[in-house]
């Protein structure tokens, strides 16, 4: 991407759900960058409006699934006058390819609505939950 080029808004992609959820809110897929270097795989996801404590990250059987929840309570007293973007929770899953991940050393960091997940490469192990700083 060339810096200085005019930024376009990326419309949020709605999640195609195979089964229904109990909550009525909409769920979107966060825009993600995935790249790797020699030691680790890095996953960066944009989830504006989500606080670090509302993120749920899980790895199970080579599938990484990330869920971010929005706090709708502050919107309750507000009426929309002019809207350009959608508001909803975020969820996305990725199948981690042959790169083997060391699950005990996974690091997650949330800043300005962007989640950075660093997955160091090592032997594969059983499913685990990861906490966010």
């Amino acid at each position, binding site marked *: *991407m*060339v*810096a*200085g*080029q*005019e*930024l*376009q*808004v*990326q419309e949020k992609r709605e999640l195609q759900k195979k089964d229904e959820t109990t909550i009525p809110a909409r769920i979107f897929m966060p*825009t*993600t*960058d*995935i*790249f*790797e*270097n*020699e030691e680790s795989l*890095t996953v*960066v996801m*944009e*989830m*504006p*409006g*989500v*606080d670090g404590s509302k993120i749920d990250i899980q790895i199970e059987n080579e599938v990484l699934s990330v869920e971010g929840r929005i706090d709708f309570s502050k*919107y309750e*007293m*507000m*009426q*929309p*006058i*002019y*809207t*350009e*973007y959608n*508001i909803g929770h975020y969820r996305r899953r990725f199948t981690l390819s042959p790169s083997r991940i060391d699950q005990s050393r996974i690091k997650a960091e*949330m*800043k*300005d*609505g*962007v989640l950075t997940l660093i997955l160091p490469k090592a032997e594969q192990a059983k499913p685990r939950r990861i906490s966010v700083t």
Partner: protein
Amino acid sequence: MLTTFADPFDSLFRLQRELEARLASDWLDGATAGVGAFPPINVFQQGHDFVALIEMPGVSKDDMTLEAKEGTIRVSGKKAVDYGDKVSVHRRERVAGNFDRTITLPIQIAPDGIKAECRDGILALLIPRAESDKPRSIKIK
């Protein structure tokens, strides 16, 4: 024949009303400096006051400037995406670049002015309405 289905023109009219509302909105009329579509802005009304929420993930307070002038608010800055060298990219969806947008306010603002709060990639502008601008109820005799 019974009308068991919704009137097909219903959704068309609704779409047209929404499009017109978007174009004729007081909130983005006569944009002065500042063009472009990023970052997206939602404006809400809370009682008499207004709240504008601007979504810019990955942009911190230091990367942007907020200016208010005579009935407009301008937010400009730079969204950076940086990954370092020697990386092999599997997926690339995020965009980076400069942005510059202006909001025109169709209301008078209270002298205390606008308060801005930037958290989790969302910039919230709390716009209090001036006392003189608030609607007054009229008693009917």
